[in-house]
């Protein structure tokens, strides 16, 4: 209770609340712009958090995270273009409803479902994370090694495209982490006498390049066009009738829980949470045929599922220090820039920070509800802004953001190089997420593996005497093998993708 009150006090601080509100508002705008993602929004705002105290800085990022996913429903419904990949499932029923003249109601359902789904996941996070942290405290080198491998294999299995390409991306990231100082002995490795490389290759410029600057290249090459909305019908506020709310509440509850569970699996992002929630809702409906033609429960399910991903993704982030998705990878960067290492020890060393994150996530959903309902109609007009205004700004923010990390031009050149790599990866269907997540996880995997091997009298075989290691490695092998088999079957045209 003490920690809860301390966390509440920290979030209740005017500066923290201000940045939380700014983050949600900014995230709503960013999420409602097609071509932008909440990850990109968090990345361009990450440098701002460096000069802020830890809690306001985190509140800003949490706000953008929540607002960005919630805002994605606006163009999904109004333009049939998902603002973020997480809102792709929302287009299926949202746009048909908008065309039928129910824009104010369906936008309201989208925002309410996002906020309530997010609140469910925030409560689940508060309940489950401390218990999992107690289990994580019992982890040794073998368990952490296995957890890192499991995290990588899950990310590779669900990151889309070919599993082999996902492994290729992960190995690229792993290779980059070996540049710098050896984690056990402290000697330089692969630095070619460069003082810059001796500091290692930070994953933050890679993150900015892969998810920020590469999008600018993509938008320019694909000639991303301005879209105009013609069916605004004098809409001012998003509104929902009580009867509609009663109809969608069960869907929101189910999808909130499912989205939280999916989000807690590293690599399974908000888009998977949204689609899974939508499909489950459709399959369990009395008349599945109404879905895809304008069924408001479809909108509620996908939006509740995708926003519930936020709390779910924070479970592995806070308890194990493993990012659940790209957004939590950015949050880990922000925490580490403030000298805070996420993991089970954080629950005992800085419980007020942990509870501030829990409460901040819940408060962000409340702000999403209020700000989203008020601004949805305005945002629908705002999504018509031309890409020529937005993307050059993203490019400048990417350059400045990369520079501000350590005031080094090398980070900027590195960011630009990764922007090009990210664009090429998009073209050849190599997922970018495993690169970044490998850069985060592999230092831990290497140091725990080597430490464990040095201690273990039976070498690697000795690892198998740890039951948790066996379970985690078994799950890792299962996820990779099943993903490969599914892909082989799909390639032969015999099974689902």
């Amino acid at each position, binding site marked *: 209770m003490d920690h809860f009150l301390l966390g509440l006090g920290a979030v209740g601080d005017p500066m923290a609340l201000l940045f939380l509100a700014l983050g949600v508002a900014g995230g709503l705008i960013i999420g409602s712009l097609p071509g932008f993602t909440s990850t990109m929004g968090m990345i361009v705002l990450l440098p701002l958090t460096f000069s802020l105290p830890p809690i306001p800085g985190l509140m800003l990022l949490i706000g953008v995270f929540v607002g960005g996913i919630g805002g994605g429903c606006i163009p999904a419904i109004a333009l049939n273009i998902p603002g973020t990949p997480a809102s792709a499932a929302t287009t299926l029923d949202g746009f048909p409803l908008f065309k039928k003249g129910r824009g104010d109601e369906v936008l309201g359902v989208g925002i309410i479902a996002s906020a309530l789904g997010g609140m469910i996941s925030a409560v689940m996070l508060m309940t489950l994370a401390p218990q999992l942290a107690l289990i994580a405290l019992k982890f040794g080198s073998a368990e952490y090694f296995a957890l890192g491998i499991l995290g990588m294999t899950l990310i590779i299995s669900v990151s889309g495209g070919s599993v082999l390409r996902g492994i290729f991306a992960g190995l690229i990231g792993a290779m980059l982490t070996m540049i710098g100082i050896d984690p056990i002995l402290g000697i330089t490795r692969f630095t070619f006498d460069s003082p810059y490389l001796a500091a290692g290759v930070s994953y933050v410029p890679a993150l900015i390049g892969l998810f920020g600057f590469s999008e600018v290249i993509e938008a320019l090459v694909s000639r991303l066009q301005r879209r105009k909305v013609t069916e605004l019908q004098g809409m001012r506020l998003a509104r929902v009738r009580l009867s509609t709310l009663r109809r969608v509440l069960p869907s929101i509850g189910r999808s909130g829980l499912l989205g939280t569970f999916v989000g807690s699996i590293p690599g399974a992002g908000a888009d998977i949470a949204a689609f899974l929630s939508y499909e489950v809702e459709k399959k369990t409906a009395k008349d599945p045929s109404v879905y895809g033609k304008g069924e408001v429960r479809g909108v509620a399910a996908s939006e509740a599922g995708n926003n519930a991903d936020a709390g779910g993704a924070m479970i592995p982030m806070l308890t194990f220090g493993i990012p659940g998705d790209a957004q939590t990878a950015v949050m880990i960067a922000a925490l580490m820039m403030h000298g805070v290492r996420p993991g089970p020890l954080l629950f005992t060393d800085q419980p007020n920070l942990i509870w501030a994150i829990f409460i901040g996530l819940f408060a962000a959903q409340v702000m999403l509800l209020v700000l989203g309902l008020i601004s949805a109609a305005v945002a629908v007009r705002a999504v018509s802004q*031309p890409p020529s*205004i937005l993307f050059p700004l993203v490019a400048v923010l990417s350059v400045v953001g990369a520079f501000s990390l350590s005031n080094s031009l090398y980070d900027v*050149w590195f960011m630009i190089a990764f922007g090009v790599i990210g664009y090429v990866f998009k073209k050849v269907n190599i997922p970018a997420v495993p690169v970044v997540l490998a850069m985060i996880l592999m230092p831990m995997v290497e140091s725990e593996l080597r430490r464990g091997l040095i201690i273990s009298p039976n070498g690697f075989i000795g690892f198998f005497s740890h039951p948790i290691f066996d379970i985690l490695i078994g799950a890792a092998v299962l996820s990779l093998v099943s993903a490969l088999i599914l892909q082989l079957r799909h390639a032969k045209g015999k099974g689902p993708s």
Partner: protein
Amino acid sequence: MLSQERVIGVVSVIAAVILWYLAAGLPSIPTHGDVGPAFFPRVIASLFLILGVLFLAIGPRLRPKAAETVSISRNDILRAGLLLVLTITYVAAQETLGFVLATAAYLFAGRFVFGSRKWLSTAVFAILCAVLLYLVFKTWLHVPLPDWDSLLNIIPGYAVD
């Protein structure tokens, strides 16, 4: 023409060879046996090699039925190249022109490249955004951005402390 899988396979094998060669130059530590600094690079090199062989052997079989083609036209490359040249020039020019001028020029050129042909509003947008970004990053966040004093320094006889 090489398929994507063969290209990735060859790149993986080359990466394995390079990594293994570089790891051979790392010192071995007697007290740490086989798990010295070269251990993990060799593990990654081995995985690259296995992956490369898999790509070359079964990679095409894992391709979806609809053949994957990389559609990058000459125009795409030119547009991407133009953006890269602009961005690299922007970064390099900051030390000489200072942040505000370089950013204003980049935003103006960027909007033009993205298709805007409204010269006046583009210029106003570029200058306003550049000044605003300077105020936010330099004044508020204390990020050491180059000033326009850098530009004055190229005038012969002019020196700013």
